[in-house]
């Protein structure tokens, strides 16, 4: 009941503040648009906005990012269904059955199901998040010291490395590259200069904002330049047609299964909404008695994928807010927002600024609900906006990124670093590395080294000290098991989880 009254307070705080409402609406529409436009994703939008959140309050900044997260995950479903072009990777499995439905003339029903299931999955995930985060944070305050946080970072990185990239090794190399970037600058214990190469710029370390902008906004444009996406589509006629209650009830198991899958994918670091959608879809195929119909326009395919990806959003906030551990690229950027306001995400946020947490929770709840409303009203407008050719969008995004990178510290060298990161990101992406892994390594590297040093000092440099701390020990063991499991999977077992053939 305490949670409910907090939720009401958060709702009132959110909707009694005109600037807050404006940011909320901007996030809802911006996330949906960037999710829908092929070639850019919600991560592009978030990266561009990141430097400017310095001008907002921490509350508004985090709220904006969480809203973009919720609606961005839904936005790409529209183009996936109508044109077979997922706006973002999270929506790729939606196209498997969504596009065949369009070809059969059932586009309205597919979009309707996507709208409804995204809202449903997201809202339920938000409710569980509200109920679960505070108790976990309470427990973490007393139970988590530096050894536990280090063990958690270790576990998080092992999971992220195992699933992030094209191969296990590339996943690890991505994470390690991020960790190495985090080393540049002053060391956290003795303040010794590392890898400054006699350049004063490097003394302060490589700033995460130009790096994130380069990896997510700039490299995205380069990939599109190579693909030469023109962005002009013939829009099919569309009327949004919600599935009837009976149809939804008929798929209740698919919905529940996808919520559970999505939620667990969200809560584990490094997995996030993209894998949630793929696993939701995969499980739907595996459990179904009519496997052959998948890929030919089965409603259940759309339902499974869209429910799962939105169900991951609320869950991803739990480790971030309760433990201070970002699980994916977008939550890593949220850590950036916290840091720009001199705050560290983690259990103490609940103690020091509970109003922030509840405004964010309320915003996520209503953002998921607003998918229902906006999905119904605005889908046709979005389709028209998609006709903006990419060659006009690209220079705008690049200039916004330039101003963003420059505005942080007023250094032109930050702009150079950003574009170089974009070039590096482009080459890494086309060779199968994970840019999200690099950013996760970059953000977690500093936390990891610092907590490791503190933990070692605390345990008097005795590694056996970890044995006396059950939580830290079990997290370390879980991390080691993750590594062993993925090595086993990579070397000794040919994969049997091939996707259906139509995936192309």
């Amino acid at each position, binding site marked *: 009941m305490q949670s409910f009254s907090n939720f009401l307070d958060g709702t009132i705080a959110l909707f009694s503040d005109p600037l807050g409402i404006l940011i909320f609406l901007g996030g809802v529409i911006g996330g949906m648009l960037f999710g829908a436009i092929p070639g850019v994703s919600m991560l592009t939008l978030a990266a561009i906005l990141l430097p400017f959140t310095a001008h907002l309050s921490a509350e508004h900044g985090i709220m904006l990012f969480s809203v973009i997260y919720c609606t961005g995950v839904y936005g790409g479903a529209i183009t996936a269904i109508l044109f077979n072009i997922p706006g973002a990777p999270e929506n790729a499995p939606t196209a498997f059955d969504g596009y065949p439905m369009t070809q059969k003339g059932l586009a309205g029903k597919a979009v309707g199901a996507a709208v409804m299931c995204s809202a449903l999955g997201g809202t339920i995930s938000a409710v569980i998040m509200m109920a679960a985060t505070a108790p976990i944070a309470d427990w973490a305050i007393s139970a988590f010291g530096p050894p536990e946080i280090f063990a958690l970072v270790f576990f998080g990185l092992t999971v992220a490395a195992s699933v992030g990239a094209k191969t296990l090794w590339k996943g690890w190399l991505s994470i*390690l590259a991020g960790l190495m970037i985090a080393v540049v600058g002053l060391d956290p214990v003795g303040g010794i200069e590392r890898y400054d190469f006699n350049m004063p710029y490097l003394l302060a370390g490589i700033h995460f904002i130009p790096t994130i902008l380069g990896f997510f906004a700039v490299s995205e444009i380069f990939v599109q330049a190579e693909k030469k996406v023109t962005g002009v589509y013939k829009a099919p006629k569309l009327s949004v047609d919600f599935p009837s209650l009976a149809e939804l009830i008929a798929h209740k198991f698919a919905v529940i299964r996808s919520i559970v899958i999505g939620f667990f994918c969200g809560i584990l670091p490094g997995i996030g909404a993209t894998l949630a959608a793929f696993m939701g879809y995969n499980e739907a195929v595996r459990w179904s008695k009519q496997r052959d119909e998948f890929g030919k326009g089965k409603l259940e395919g759309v339902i499974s994928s869209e429910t799962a990806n939105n169900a991951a959003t609320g869950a991803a906030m739990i480790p971030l807010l309760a433990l201070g551990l970002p699980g994916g690229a977008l939550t890593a950027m949220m850590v950036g927002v916290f840091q720009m306001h001199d705050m560290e995400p983690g259990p103490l946020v609940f103690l020091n600024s509970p109003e922030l947490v509840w405004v964010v929770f309320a915003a996520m709840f209503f953002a998921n609900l607003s998918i229902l409303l906006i999905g119904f009203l605005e889908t046709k407008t979005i389709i028209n906006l998609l006709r903006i050719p990419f060659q006009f969008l690209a220079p705008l995004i690049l200039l916004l990124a330039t101003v963003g990178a420059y505005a942080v510290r007023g250094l032109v060298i930050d702009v150079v670093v950003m574009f170089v990161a974009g070039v590096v990101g482009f080459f890494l992406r086309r060779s199968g590395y994970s840019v999200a892994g690099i950013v996760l390594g970059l953000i977690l590297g500093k936390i990891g080294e610092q907590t490791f040093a503190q933990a070692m000092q605390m345990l008097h440099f005795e590694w056996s000290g970890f044995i006396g701390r059950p939580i830290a020990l079990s997290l370390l063991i879980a991390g080691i098991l993750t590594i062993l499991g993925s090595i086993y999977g990579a070397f000794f077992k040919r994969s049997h989880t091939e996707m259906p053939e139509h995936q192309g």
Partner: protein
Amino acid sequence: MGKLRIGHFVEAGLWLALAAILYIYSFEFEQSIEIYKYGATAWPRTIILLIVIAAVGQLLYHWERGDEATSGTIGAATDDGSHNAAIESGHSSFRWYLSTFTLLIIPFAYMRLPEWAMQAFGFDEGGLPTAKLICAVVLIVLYIFMTRRNHVGGMLALPVFFAALLEDMGFYATAPFFVIGVMLLMGERRPQWMILIGALIMGIMLFLFVSLLYVGLPTGNIHPFYDFGNWVVKLLQ
């Protein structure tokens, strides 16, 4: 040889070279810290060791499996199509890489060459802006010449070149050309559209950041770019 291609060796070689350089440089800051037994080097050196292990593991993996992804689900979830685009566009030949990396050196040439030239010929400091202007013109001509045959390479180098010119020429004088350049490289050919949209984009940027948010964008430090930048700022604020 298994399924290894030259590209796989280059990839592993780059990682190992990076690890070697980072390891050698780590001796520069090998100092003990009184309160911390492991010192400043233990953490980075552990990461370097892991990079070496992972790079070798990656090479062995390529040897056995070629370019196959680890598992169906994960491979599909991480594939953003950039790899296929690279293969389809034929941008994986040695010539393409050579021309692209030459293009990418151009911006860095601008950042270093004028100073070196000044020192080599013993000119005094006052001539630096002129040297920079001459260097910029030569490099822009070279860039345009090379880009005509390699649009993607040109697209990669253009923003870096733009950023390199930003300090001296300023945002206000260079950004319009940058916008037009990106449109051209993305395949736009209609002049009226490029001018219209270019003006619109510049209008949005200047209104939003200069008039509304008072972000001080770089005005440049070479005459006449410096004066132009200041004139624009004065006009808008």
